[in-house]
C-alpha cells in the first residue's frame, strides 16, 4: 500500500469501515511508515477537537414561535379556497374510501375491472360522455358489471355535481347510515359479469377520457417561495412535487378563472415573459399505464433503490393517482387543470 492510498483510507480506518484485508494492509503500512502514522494521529486529534464541541441550545422562544406560526398554517389549511371545488374533492375522497371497502368485499372480481367500472361510472356525470355511455350501454346499467348498485340520486342531477355526489359525502359515509349507500353485492356469476364489456369497448371509452390541460412554465429566482405562493392560491385543490430541475404543481381551478391567471402572472415580478402557457391533453389510459409502471418499479424486489429514489417514485405515483381520481371531474365543465412548472 502506498502513502497516497493510505491517505484515501484514513477516515474509513478511523470509522472502522475497512474490511479485514484492507485493515491488515493499512496497519502493516502504518507500522512501517512514520509519516502515515503522524497523519493518522493528526486526523484523530482533529476529530477529538470536533467531538469536544458542545451542541448549542436553540433560543428559548424557538418552539413557541414555531408553534405559533404553525397554528396560523393550521387555521388557513382548514378553510377551503374554492368551496365548490373543495366539496367535489372531498366527495371524491369519500368515493375512494367507499371504493376501498367495496374492493375488499368484491374480492375475486378483480381490482382493475372494478376500478374501470368505478371510473366509467363517475365519468357518466359528464353529460356528453353520459350520452355515449348510453350508446354503448355500459354505464347506466350497473347490473352488467354485477358489482354494485348505485343509488339513483347519485346520478340524478348532472347540473349540480355537489348534490350529485352528495350521497358519498364524508359526513354521511362516516356515520351509521353508510350501509345505505353503495355497497358490493357479490355477483353469482363471479367475474363473468365483466366479460360483457369487451376490451375494445373499454379501450374506446378510455380514449375518450382526457382532460384539457394548461401547462405553465414559470421562471423565477425563488423556486420555493413561488411554489408556496401558488400552492396557497390553489389550497387543497393542488398537489405539488419536486422534479430534478423544477418544482411542479398540479392544480385545478374553476373554469375560465381569469383571476387565477392574473395572480400567477403577478407573481412573476411583473414580467409576463416569464410565464409560458402550453395547452395539451392528458389521457386517462396513459395515466393508468404510468400508474402500473410506477407500482411495478416500487414493488420490484430486485430493484435496490435508495430512500430518495423511492420517495420520488412514491410521490409520482401519488400525483398520477391524484390525476386519475380527478380527471373525470376536470373533464367536466367546471374546472381547468393547470400543470405549473417553476424553474429558475
Amino acid at each position: 500500500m502506498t502513502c497516497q492510498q493510505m491517505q484515501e483510507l484514513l477516515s474509513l480506518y478511523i470509522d472502522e469501515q475497512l474490511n479485514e484485508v484492507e485493515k491488515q494492509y493499512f496497519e502493516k503500512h502504518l507500522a512501517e511508515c512514520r509519516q502515515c502514522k503522524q497523519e493518522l494521529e493528526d486526523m484523530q486529534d482533529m476529530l477529538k477537537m470536533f467531538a469536544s464541541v458542545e451542541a448549542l441550545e436553540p433560543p428559548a422562544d424557538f418552539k413557541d414561535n414555531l408553534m405559533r406560526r404553525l397554528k396560523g398554517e393550521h387555521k388557513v389549511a382548514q378553510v377551503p379556497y374554492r368551496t365548490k371545488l373543495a366539496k367535489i374533492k372531498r366527495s371524491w375522497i369519500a368515493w375512494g374510501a367507499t371504493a376501498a371497502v367495496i374492493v375488499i368485499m368484491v374480492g375475486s372480481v378483480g381490482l382493475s375491472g372494478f376500478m374501470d367500472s368505478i371510473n366509467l361510472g363517475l365519468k357518466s356525470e359528464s353529460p356528453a360522455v353520459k350520452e355515449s355511455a348510453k350508446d354503448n350501454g355500459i354505464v347506466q346499467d350497473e347490473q352488467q358489471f354485477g358489482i354494485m348498485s348505485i343509488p339513483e340520486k347519485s346520478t340524478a342531477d348532472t347540473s349540480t355535481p355537489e348534490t350529485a355526489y352528495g350521497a358519498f359525502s364524508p359526513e354521511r359515509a362516516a356515520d351509521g347510515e353508510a350501509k345505505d349507500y353503495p355497497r358490493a353485492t357479490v355477483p353469482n356469476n363471479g367475474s363473468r359479469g365483466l366479460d360483457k364489456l369487451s376490451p375494445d369497448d373499454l379501450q374506446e371509452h378510455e380514449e375518450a377520457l382526457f382532460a384539457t390541460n394548461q401547462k405553465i412554465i414559470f421562471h423565477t429566482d425563488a423556486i420555493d417561495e413561488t411554489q408556496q405562493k401558488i400552492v396557497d392560491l390553489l389550497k387543497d385543490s393542488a398537489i405539488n412535487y419536486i422534479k430534478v430541475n423544477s418544482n411542479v404543481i398540479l392544480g385545478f381551478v374553476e373554469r375560465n378563472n381569469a383571476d387565477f391567471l392574473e395572480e400567477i402572472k403577478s407573481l412573476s415580478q411583473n414580467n409576463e415573459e416569464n410565464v409560458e402557457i402550453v395547452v395539451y391533453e392528458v389521457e386517462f389510459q396513459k395515466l393508468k399505464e404510468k400508474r402500473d409502471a410506477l407500482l411495478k418499479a416500487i414493488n420490484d424486489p430486485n430493484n435496490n433503490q435508495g430512500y430518495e429514489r423511492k420517495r420520488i417514485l412514491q410521490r409520482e405515483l401519488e400525483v398520477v393517482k391524484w390525476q386519475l381520481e380527478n380527471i373525470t371531474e376536470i373533464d367536466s365543465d367546471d374546472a381547468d387543470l393547470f400543470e405549473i412548472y417553476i424553474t429558475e
Partner: protein
Amino acid sequence: MIPDDLLVQKVKEGHLESFEVLVERYQKQVYNMAYRYTGNSEDAYDLSQEAFIKAYKGIKSFRQEAAFKTWIYHITSNVCKDFLRKANKYKEVSIDAPIHTEEGEMEKQITDRVNGPEEIYEIKELSEFIQSMISSLPNDYREVIVLREFQQLSYEEMSDILDCSLGTVKSRLNRARNMLKEKFIRVREQSNMQLRQIR
C-alpha cells in the same frame, strides 16, 4: 415515550400537539445542523424554523419508510443547501464583478478569513474556530462533516439523507476530513510559533 411513528400518524390526522412533541424532540439537532451549515445563529434560527414548517406541511406525503429523524434531517439539509446555494451565487457575482468607482474599475480585495495568522488571536472560542474551518469547505464536503461530526450519523443514514451512494459518502467524508486536517495542522503550527514568540 411515544414513538415518532405514532406521533407522525397523529399529525397526519390533524393533531398539531403531536407535532409539538416532535419539535421538542428534534429542535436541538435541527438547529445545530443549520448552525453548522450556515455558521450563524440568525440564519440557523430561520432555516430550522423553515425546515419544521416544511415538514409539517409535507407530513402527508411522508411515507414513513424511513425514520422521522432521517426525514427531518433530509429536509433540513435541503433547506440549508438551498440557502447556501443562493448565498454562494450572490457571493460569486460579487467576487467576480469589479467595483465601479468614479476613477474607473478596481478589483476587489478578497481576504482569506481562515488562515490569516492575526485572525488566530481573534478566535477565542473553539466552537467559532471550528466553525470557521467548516465554513471554508465547499458545500458538498461541509454537509458530510456536519452530519458525521456533529449529528453523529452512520454512513447509511448519511447516504439516505444526502441521496447519494455509500461510496460517495465515504469518499466525500475522507476528502473533507483531509482538507480539515491540513488546515488544522497549519493553524496548529502557526499558533505554536506565535506562542514561542510570546514567550
